[in-house]
C-alpha cells in the first residue's frame, strides 16, 4: 500500500508539466470565462490559447475558482478508499476564494490539510515543490506542514505588469488608477508576500529596458538569495524576449536551475499579456 502523502495544489502554481509529473503533484483547475463559455484552466485552455482572443479580438476574460463541490470531488478522488493523506496548497486567499472553498470542502475530512500559501504563480510552485520533495521521501505530514511554515516567508514573488487593465477588469484595481497608469505608461511592480499585495515601485521606458531594470531590482540583494532555483513567469512573451530576461538574471546570479514558463490562464486573466514575474527563495 502506498502511504506516500499526496500533494495537491491549484493550477495557478504555474509549474511546468515535467515537475508536476516528476513529483506526482495533483492539480485543481480554475475556470476561465469568455463570452459566457466556461473553460477549465490547464486542461482545456492555456494562456497561449487565450492570447490571440485577448490581443486581436479584445475579448473580455475573467477567472473563477473551483467550487466547494469541485474541491470535495477532487479530494475524495485523490484520497480513494484508503483515505490517503492530502496536503493541498492554495493560492493566496487575498486574491481568490479558492482557499475558502478548499477549506470548506475539507472541513469534515481529517486526512486533508489545506494551507493558504499567501502567494501565487511560481511562488506557490516553489511552496508546493518543497512539500512534494518531502513527500517523495515519505516525510510525515507534520514535518511537511512545519517545513512549509518555515519556507513561506522566504519565498519572493513579484510581477511587473505591462498593463493594469486586466486587474481593473477583474475589479482588483480602480479603473481610474489603471487608466492613469496607462496614460503615463507606468509599469508597476507588484510584490506578493504573506498574503499581502504591495506595490514595490514602478518603471517606465521600453519593454526591454524596464524588464532589465526589474530583474536587477528584485535580484539586488544577491547575498540573501538562494541560487538553487529561479522561476520566471511570462505571459505572451516571445522567445527572444525570454532569452533577454534569462541572460539578465544569469548575469547577476549563477543559478543552478532556471525555469521559464508561461503563466496559467487564470493568472493571465489578471496580469494580462507581456507581464513578467520572478520567483525564488531567500536565505532567510
Amino acid at each position, binding site marked *: 500500500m502506498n502511504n506516500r502523502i499526496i500533494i495537491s495544489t491549484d493550477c495557478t502554481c504555474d509549474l511546468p508539466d515535467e515537475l508536476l509529473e516528476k513529483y506526482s503533484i495533483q492539480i485543481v483547475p480554475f475556470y476561465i470565462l469568455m463570452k459566457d*463559455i*466556461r*473553460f477549465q484552466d490547464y486542461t*482545456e*485552455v492555456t494562456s497561449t*490559447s487565450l492570447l490571440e482572443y485577448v490581443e486581436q479580438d479584445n475579448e473580455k476574460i475573467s477567472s473563477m475558482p473551483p467550487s466547494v463541490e469541485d474541491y470535495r470531488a477532487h479530494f475524495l478522488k485523490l484520497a480513494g478508499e484508503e483515505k490517503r493523506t492530502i496536503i493541498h496548497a492554495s493560492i493566496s486567499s487575498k486574491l481568490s476564494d479558492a482557499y475558502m472553498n478548499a477549506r470548506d470542502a475539507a472541513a469534515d475530512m481529517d486526512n486533508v490539510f489545506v494551507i493558504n500559501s499567501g502567494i501565487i504563480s511560481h511562488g506557490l510552485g516553489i511552496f508546493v515543490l518543497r512539500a512534494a520533495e518531502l513527500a517523495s521521501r515519505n516525510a510525515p505530514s507534520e514535518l511537511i506542514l512545519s517545513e512549509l511554515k518555515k519556507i513561506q516567508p522566504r519565498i519572493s514573488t513579484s510581477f511587473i505588469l505591462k498593463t493594469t487593465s486586466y486587474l481593473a477588469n477583474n475589479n482588483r484595481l480602480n479603473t481610474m488608477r489603471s487608466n492613469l497608469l496607462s496614460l503615463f505608461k507606468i509599469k508597476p511592480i507588484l510584490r506578493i508576500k504573506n498574503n499581502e499585495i504591495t506595490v514595490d515601485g514602478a518603471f517606465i521606458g521600453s519593454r526591454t529596458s524596464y524588464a532589465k531594470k526589474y530583474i536587477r531590482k528584485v535580484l539586488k540583494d544577491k547575498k540573501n538569495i538562494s541560487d538553487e532555483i529561479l522561476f520566471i513567469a511570462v505571459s505572451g512573451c516571445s*522567445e527572444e524576449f525570454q532569452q533577454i530576461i534569462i541572460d539578465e538574471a544569469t548575469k547577476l546570479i549563477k543559478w543552478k536551475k532556471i525555469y521559464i514558463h508561461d503563466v496559467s490562464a487564470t493568472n493571465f486573466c489578471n496580469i494580462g499579456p507581456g507581464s513578467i514575474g520572478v520567483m525564488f527563495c531567500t536565505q532567510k
Partner: protein
Amino acid sequence: MSKIKKVVNYILHVRDKGRTINISGLYIAFALISLYAVIMGIVCFIKSDVIMGITNIVIALVMTLTILMFSKIKSHTVLSVFVVIFIYTLMVYFLYEGGVGGVSIMWLLFVPVAGMALINLYYGSILSLLLGITVPLYMFTPLHYLGYQYSEEYRIRFPIIYWAFFILALVIFIRIERSEEAQKEMVKKADEANRSKSEFLANMSHELRTPMNAIMGMCELTLNEEIPENVRENNENIHQASKNLMSIINDLLDFSKIESGNMELSCSQYRLSEVLNDVLYMTSARKGGKKIEYLVDCDPDIPDVLYGDELRIKQIMINLITNAIKYTEEGGFLLSVSHRREKYGINLIISVKDSGIGIQKSQLGKIFNAYGRIESEKVHAIEGTGLGLPITKKLIKLMDGVINIKSRYGEGTEFKVVIPQKVIEDTPIVTINKTDKRYKFLCCFNADGIPDFITHSFLNTFTTAMKRLDATLYNSQNIDDIIFESRNGRYTHVLISEKDYSENKTYFDDLAKKCFVIVMQERNSKIILGSDVVRLYKPFYIKKFCEIINRPFNVKNKDTSPDAFIAPKAKVLIVDDNIVNLKVAVGQMGTYRMEIDTASNGIAAVEMVKHKKYDIIFMDHLMPGMDGIETHREIRQIEKDYAKKIPVIALTARSESDIGGLYIKEGFQGFMPKPIPSSALRNTLLKWLPAEYIKKKENDA
C-alpha cells in the same frame, strides 16, 4: 450610486437613440415649468435661499424625468432643443448677473466646445451663435444698463475672444464630423465589397466544383469497369490527383470566405456518433501505405444528440487527423473525444495526439498563419497548401471554442480543441445492454513500435467496456498465448488483429463457432474472413465495439461492412441538366442496383413523377428554366399522395454550409454536395429507402 448611474445612463440613452416625445400641452407645460424652476433655483442659491433653491431644482428634475419616461412620439431632437433653450437661458442669466463674482463670464468661452461636444454640431453651433449675438448686444447697447456693469476693456475684448473661440470650435468639430462621415462611407463601401466578394465566392464554388464533379465521377465509373492494369493505375492517379485538387479548392474557398468575414455556421441537431462514424470512414483511407496505428478513444458517456454545425465539426476533426497523418511516419496517432458538463450543455473536447515529427517552439506561432509555412527540413517534403490549420482555428473561434497545441520537436504533437455545444438529448453515445452473462474477453494487441499513449488508450477502450459489463479482460501481445488461453473454452470473446487471424485462420474459424472471434481489420483489407468471424473495421471506437457485445450470439456474423447492400426494388429519379453529372450520378448509384430514371430539366421531372411512383429523387439545384427548388415545389403540388411524401435530396455544386439551410427551409429532406461522397450517398439511401428494399450484398466469400 447605482441608481444614480441608472438614471444618468437612461438620459444618455435618450440623447443617443431618441425617445418618443408627446407634443401634448401637458408635456410642453412640464417642460416650461422645469425650465423656470431651474432658473429660479439658481437665483435662490445666489440669494442664499437654499431651501427654495433645492425645492426648485427638485421640481425641475421631476418634470424633466416625467417627460422623458412617459412621452410617446419619437424625436431626440426635441430633447436637444430643450437642452439648448435651457443652457441659453442659463447663460443669459449668467451674463446679466455678471456670473459668480462678475469675471466668471469667462466660463462662457466653454459654451461653443461644450455645446458641440455634448449636444451635437448643429444645435451646439446654434447655441453658440445665439450667445455670440447676445453678448455684443448686451455689451454695446442700452441693455447693458439693465444688468451687471462690465468694465470698458471687458466689453470690447470679451466678444472678440468669444467669437475667436466659437470659430475655432466650429472648425474643429466640422472636421471631426467630416472625418466621421468619411469613415461611415468607408464602412459602407467595405460592406458592399464584402457582399460582392461573397457572391463571387459562391459563384466560384459552383463553377469550380461542377467540372471537378465530372472528373472525379468519371474516374470512379472507369475504375468500376474491367480495365487493363496500366489503365487502372493511370485512372487511380487521376482520381487521387482530382481528390487532392478538390480538397485544395475547398480549402481556398473556405479560407477566402473566412477572410472576408462571410463564413457563417449552420447549426442544427446532429448525432455525434454519426459524425464520428463519418470522420473515421473518411480518414481511414488517408493513411495510404503508411504503417501507422490510428486509434480512437471516445468517452462513452458523451451525450449523443447535440446542437451545432455538424459539417464544420467534421471538418475540424478531419483537418486535425489529416495533419497527424501527414506528419507521422511511424508509431501512430490517437483521436480522443470527451466532454465536460456545463450549464449551457457540454464542452466537447477533441484531441489528436501523434508521435510525428513535432514542431519547434520557435515555429509554434506560425502554425495558424496561412501565409507563412513552418521552416523545417522535415516539413519541406510534405505537400499541402498549409490552410487546414488556419481554417480549423477560424472555425473553432466562430464556435466560441479554443484550440491548444503541445509539441515536442522530434517526438510528436497534440492538438486539443474545446467547443461548447448544446445538448438536445442526454442519451449517451454508448449503451451496453445489461446481461446476466459473465463475459470474458481475450485480447491480443501487439504494441511493438506503437507509442505508449496509444496503447494505453486502446486498452482503456476495452477496460471501460469491461467495467460496464462487469467482465474480465486478458490481454497479451503474444498470439500463442491467446491461442493457449482460448483452448480452455472459458472465454466468450476473442479480439485479434487480421495478421494474427490470417496466420491461424483454421483455428480461429473453428473457434468462431463456439464464441465471438472479432478481427480488427483495415477497411482496404483483402483478407476474407470466415462466415462466423466478426469484422471490426479500424479505426473503431467504443460504440462499434459495444455494438458487437450487444449482439446475441446467433447474430454474431452480421457483417459490419457499411457498403454491403443493394436495393433492386428501389425506384430512383435523378434530375440534372448537365449530361456528364447525370452520367456520374447514375454510375455511382448503379452499384446499389436500383432502377434509375433520369431527367434533364424540371419540367420533364414533374411529368415523370406524375406517372411513376419513385422512392427517392435526387434533384440538382441550378438548372435553366425551372430550377431545383421550383421543381420541388411543383412536385409537391401534384395531386397524388406519394408526390407529397417522396424524399427529395438536393444536389449542389456550392458549399453545403452556404446553402444547406436554404434547402431545409424549402422542404427538401436533405442535400449533398457534388461530387457526391460515397459515404453520404450510402447513408442517404439507408435513411430514406424503405427498410424492406435494403438487401445484403452477396458475401465476399
